[in-house]
C-alpha cells in the first residue's frame, strides 16, 4: 500500500527555543520603555532614569540567552529585514536619547533642542514597546504568533507595566507628587484595551491553522489553562477592573497607595504571565 500525504500529519510541535530569559526581556524591556514614556510625559526625570535602568536590565537577559553573547554587536547588521536588528537600534536610541533627555536638565540647551530630544526619545520608547510584537507576528512557522494584534497588545501591556512600575516606585521618587488617581484611571482604560485585544486575538486564532487552535486549547483547557484563565485574564485583568471600577469614579475618590499597590502587583503578575504563556504556547504546524 502506498503512503498518502495526509497520513504524514506529524503532530503539532511546541517551540522550545525561546524560554524564560527571552520572556523576562519581553517583560522588562516593555515595562522599562513604558515607564520611561509615562515619566517623560509627567516630566519626572527619576522615573525616566528608572525606566532606562529596567530596560537595560531586561536587555541583559536577552544577552545571556544568546549562544554567543560576545558577538551581540552583530545583531545590528540587518535592520533592513530583521526586527531583532531593528530592535537593537530602537533600544540603543532610547538609551542614548533618554540619557541625553535626563542630562539636558543639567546642561544649557536651547528649547528647540530639548523638544527635539524629548520627541525623539518618545518615538524610540514607543518603538521599543511595539517592535517585540513585530518580532513574533511575521512568523510563518508559529501561527499563534502570526497576528496583527501582537504589536498593539505588546504596546498596551508595556504601557500598563510601565505605569505599574511608576506606581510602585512613586514613594521613592523625588520630585512633585505623582497623581495616582489619574494613573489608576489610565490603567483602567489600558486593562480594558488589553482584555479586548487578547480576547480578539484568541477569537481570530480560533479559526486559524491547526497549530494556533492547539495553542488556544493549551491556554484555555490544556496544561496552561489555569494560569491563562485564572492568572492572565482573572488576576491580571478582570479582578483589577472589578476592584478599581466601583471606586475610581466614586465622588471624591482619593487613590489609596495600598490599593494601587495591590492593583499594580496583580496587573504586573498578569503581564509577565501573558508574555510567558504566549511564548510557551507557540506551536509549529504539522509538516503535511
Amino acid at each position, binding site marked *: 500500500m502506498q*503512503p498518502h*500525504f495526509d497520513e*504524514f500529519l506529524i503532530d503539532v510541535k511546541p517551540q522550545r527555543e525561546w524560554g524564560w530569559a527571552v520572556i523576562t526581556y519581553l517583560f522588562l524591556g516593555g515595562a522599562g520603555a513604558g515607564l520611561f514614556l509615562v515619566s517623560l510625559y509627567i516630566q519626572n526625570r527619576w522615573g525616566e532614569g528608572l525606566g532606562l535602568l529596567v530596560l537595560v536590565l531586561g536587555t541583559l537577559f536577552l544577552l545571556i540567552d*544568546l*549562544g554567543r553573547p560576545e558577538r551581540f554587536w552583530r545583531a545590528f547588521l540587518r535592520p533592513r529585514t530583521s526586527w*531583532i536588528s531593528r530592535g537593537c537600534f530602537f533600544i540603543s536610541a532610547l538609551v542614548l536619547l533618554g540619557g541625553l533627555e535626563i542630562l539636558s536638565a543639567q546642561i544649557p540647551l536651547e528649547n528647540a533642542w530639548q523638544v527635539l530630544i524629548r520627541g525623539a526619545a518618545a518615538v524610540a520608547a514607543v518603538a521599543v514597546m511595539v517592535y517585540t510584537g513585530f518580532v513574533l507576528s511575521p*512568523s*510563518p512557522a508559529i501561527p499563534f504568533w502570526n497576528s496583527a494584534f501582537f504589536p498593539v497588545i505588546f504596546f498596551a501591556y508595556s504601557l500598563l507595566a510601565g505605569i505599574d512600575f511608576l506606581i510602585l516606585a512613586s514613594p521613592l521618587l523625588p520630585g512633585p507628587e505623582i497623581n495616582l488617581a489619574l494613573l489608576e484611571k489610565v490603567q483602567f482604560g489600558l486593562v480594558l484595551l488589553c482584555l479586548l485585544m487578547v480576547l480578539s486575538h484568541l477569537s481570530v486564532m480560533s479559526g486559524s491553522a491547526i497549530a494556533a487552535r492547539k495553542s488556544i486549547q493549551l491556554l484555555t483547557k490544556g496544561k496552561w489553562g489555569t494560569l491563562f484563565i485564572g492568572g492572565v485574564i482573572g488576576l491580571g485583568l478582570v479582578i483589577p477592573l472589578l476592584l478599581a471600577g466601583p471606586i475610581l469614579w466614586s465622588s471624591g475618590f482619593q487613590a489609596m497607595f495600598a490599593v494601587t499597590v495591590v492593583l499594580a502587583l496583580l496587573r504586573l503578575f498578569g503581564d509577565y504571565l501573558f508574555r510567558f504563556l504566549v511564548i510557551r504556547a507557540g506551536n509549529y*504546524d504539522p509538516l*503535511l
Partner: protein
Amino acid sequence: MARYGMVIDLNICIGCNACTMACKAEHATPPGIFFSKVLEKEVGKYPAARRIFLPVLCNHCSNPACMEVCPTGATSKRDDGIVLVDYDLCIGCRSCMEACPYGPRSFYKEQDTYYAEGKTPFEESKQDYPEGVVMKCNFCVDRVDQGLDPACVVTCPTECRIFGDLDDPHSKVSQIIAEKKARPLLPEKGLEPSVFYVGS
C-alpha cells in the same frame, strides 16, 4: 545559474535511515543534532498497521524566512539556491529556528561528544563550528561544488532521493517533480521550498 533542489519519493523510502547516518558521517554532527532525519509514524490498525516515513532536511527555500529574520546575516542564500549558515557570524539568537516551519535547524548549545574521551580525530577534522550557534543541512555544499551529489542522495539504497537543477526542465529532478506531481511541504507558507515530495 542552477537552482539546486531535491525530490524525495515517499513511495520508495523504506525508512532505513541510511541518509541520516550518511549525513552524520559527512558532517560529523554532535550527539542529538541531525541535519537530515527520517520521521516515522505508525498508521492503521492491526492487522493492517504499518509504518510510514518522512525524510526531512532543510528545504533551501527560495524565499527563506530564516534568512529574513536573521539579525546578523549569518544565514545567506547562494546564487544556486543553497541556504547556508556562517558559523562565524551566528550569535545563537535562534530567531531562525522560530521562523522556519520545517524544523531542520539545531542549536549547538554546548560541546557534546559521543565518547567520554572527547572528540575522535575524525570529529576534530570535520567539526568546524563553535558551540552556541545554530546548525543545519547545507546540501553538502562542498560535495556539490565538486560536482557530486549530497551524501544522503548517494547513500540512499532505494534511490528515493534525487538531487539536481530545478531550473533545468530536462534534469532528472525536474522531470520527476513534473511527472509524479511532487509537492513541497507546507506550500501555503509561501517560502518556495526546493525540496519536493512524491506521495500518492
